[in-house]
C-alpha cells in the first residue's frame, strides 16, 4: 500500500518519466486496487478543505448569535449597581472559602485531572490500559506503562499527570515543560499544567507570570479562561 501511495504521490507531483506515467495511467484502468488508492489519495488531500469549511461553519454560527442589546444609561446605572453587589458578595464568598491560587490549583487537580478521557473500544491497547490504571488512581503502574509507549505529546502529558498525582512535582514540571515546546498542537496544555504544578510547589510568582502569559498570548495555549480566573485570586 505504501508503495502504491509513493507511486501515486510521484505521479501527482509530476516526478515520473513519460513512460512511467503512461504505464501508471494504463494500470488504473485495469487495476481496481490502484484506482481505489488513487481515489483515496485525492480525497485525503481534500480533508483540509473540509476541515476549513467545518471551522467556518462554527465561526459563522458563533458570529450569527444575537448581539447584546444596547441598554439605556439609566438601565446601565441599575446594572452597574447590581454588578457591584454581585462582586462584593462574590469576594466575600471567595474569602470565606479561602480561595487562593493554590486552592484553585488543588481543586483543579482533584476535579479536572482526576480522570483521562478515552475512546470506547473493544480492543485494549497499552494506552487504554494505562489510562484505565490512571483512572483507577494506580498512578505508578500507569506511569510504568505510559513509559513503554511511543513518546508523543499525549504520553508526555499523561506521564506528567501521573507525576503530578503522586506529588513528584519536579518530574511533572519536566514533562509539562517538554509538552509546552510542541508547537504542532492545535491546543497546547503544557503551559497551563506547568502553572498548576508551580502552584502546587508554592512557587507563586513563577506561576503568576506563566498564567499571565497564557491569558495574554495569542499562542494556542489551553486554559486561558482558567488562567484569567486564577489571576484574580492573586493579591
Amino acid at each position, binding site marked *: 500500500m505504501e508503495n502504491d*501511495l509513493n507511486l501515486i504521490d510521484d505521479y501527482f507531483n509530476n516526478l515520473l518519466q513519460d513512460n512511467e506515467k503512461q504505464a501508471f495511467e494504463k494500470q488504473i484502468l485495469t487495476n481496481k486496487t490502484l484506482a481505489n488508492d488513487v481515489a483515496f489519495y485525492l480525497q485525503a488531500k481534500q480533508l483540509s478543505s473540509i476541515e476549513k469549511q467545518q471551522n467556518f461553519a462554527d465561526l459563522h454560527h458563533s458570529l450569527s448569535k444575537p448581539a447584546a442589546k444596547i441598554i439605556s444609561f439609566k438601565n446601565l446605572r441599575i446594572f452597574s449597581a447590581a454588578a457591584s453587589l454581585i462582586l462584593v458578595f462574590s469576594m466575600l464568598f471567595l474569602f470565606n472559602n479561602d480561595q487562593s491560587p493554590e486552592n484553585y490549583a488543588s481543586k483543579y487537580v482533584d476535579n479536572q485531572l482526576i480522570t483521562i478521557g478515552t475512546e470506547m473500544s473493544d480492543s485494549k491497547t497499552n494506552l487504554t490500559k494505562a489510562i484505565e490504571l490512571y483512572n483507577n488512581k494506580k498512578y505508578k503502574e500507569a506511569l510504568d506503562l505510559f513509559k513503554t509507549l511511543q513518546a508523543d505529546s499525549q504520553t508526555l502529558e499523561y506521564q506528567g499527570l501521573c507525576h503530578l498525582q503522586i506529588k513528584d512535582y519536579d518530574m511533572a514540571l519536566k514533562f509539562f515543560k517538554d509538552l509546552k515546546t510542541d508547537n504542532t498542537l492545535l491546543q497546547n496544555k503544557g503551559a497551563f499544567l506547568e502553572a498548576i504544578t508551580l502552584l502546587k510547589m508554592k512557587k507563586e510568582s513563577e506561576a503568576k507570570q506563566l498564567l499571565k502569559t497564557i491569558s495574554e498570548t495569542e499562542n494556542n495555549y489551553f486554559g486561558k479562561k482558567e488562567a484569567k480566573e486564577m489571576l484574580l485570586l492573586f493579591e
Partner: protein
Amino acid sequence: MFFNSKKSDATIIEGIKEGGIQRRKFENLLFEKYHYLIKDGIRKHKLTDDECFSIYSDTIMAILDSIINDKFEGRSELKTFVYQIFSNKCVDQIRKNTTNKASVHNGLSIDDIAYSLPEENKSIIGQMMLEHDIDKLYQKLSLIGEKCKQMILFWGEGYSDEEISKHLEYNSPAVAKTSRLRCLDKLKANY
C-alpha cells in the same frame, strides 16, 4: 463592536502567506472581517442564510487560494476582491435557483483535483470517489495522532514536503515525505 480591533488587510494577507499553525488564526480573521456580506446577500439577493453562508465560505476559500498561490496581486483592495467574488457567486446562485442549472458551490470536482489524469481515468476515479464517504474519512483523521493529522492537513493545503519539514520539525523533506505517506497509510487502515 467598539472593542473589536480589526486587523488591516495587509496584516491578514501577511499572516496567511506566512503559513504554519498561525495561518488558521488569520484565516479566521479574514472570515470574520467580511462576515457581514452574508447579511448583505440575504437582504440584497433574497437568498437564504444557508445559501449565503455556503457562498461566503466558498468565497473565502477562493480568496485564500489566491493569496497563498500569489494570484492576488493587490491591484484592487482585498475588500473589493472579496465583494466581487461573493457577488458573482450570489448571482450564479440566483441563476441556479431560477433555472436549476449546474451547481455553483458544491466543492471541487474531479477535474479540479485530478486535472493531470486522462479523461477515461477521471471517470473511473470520479465514480470511486462518489462511492467513498469523505465525511467518514474526515472523522478518521482524529484517530491517527495529532502530528499525522496536522501533516495531512498541511499537505492538503498545498504545503510542499520542504515546508512541512520546516513547520513540523522533520530532519529533511525526504523524511517528511516518508512520514506523510505513512500517515496516509495509517488513515487508510483506519478507514
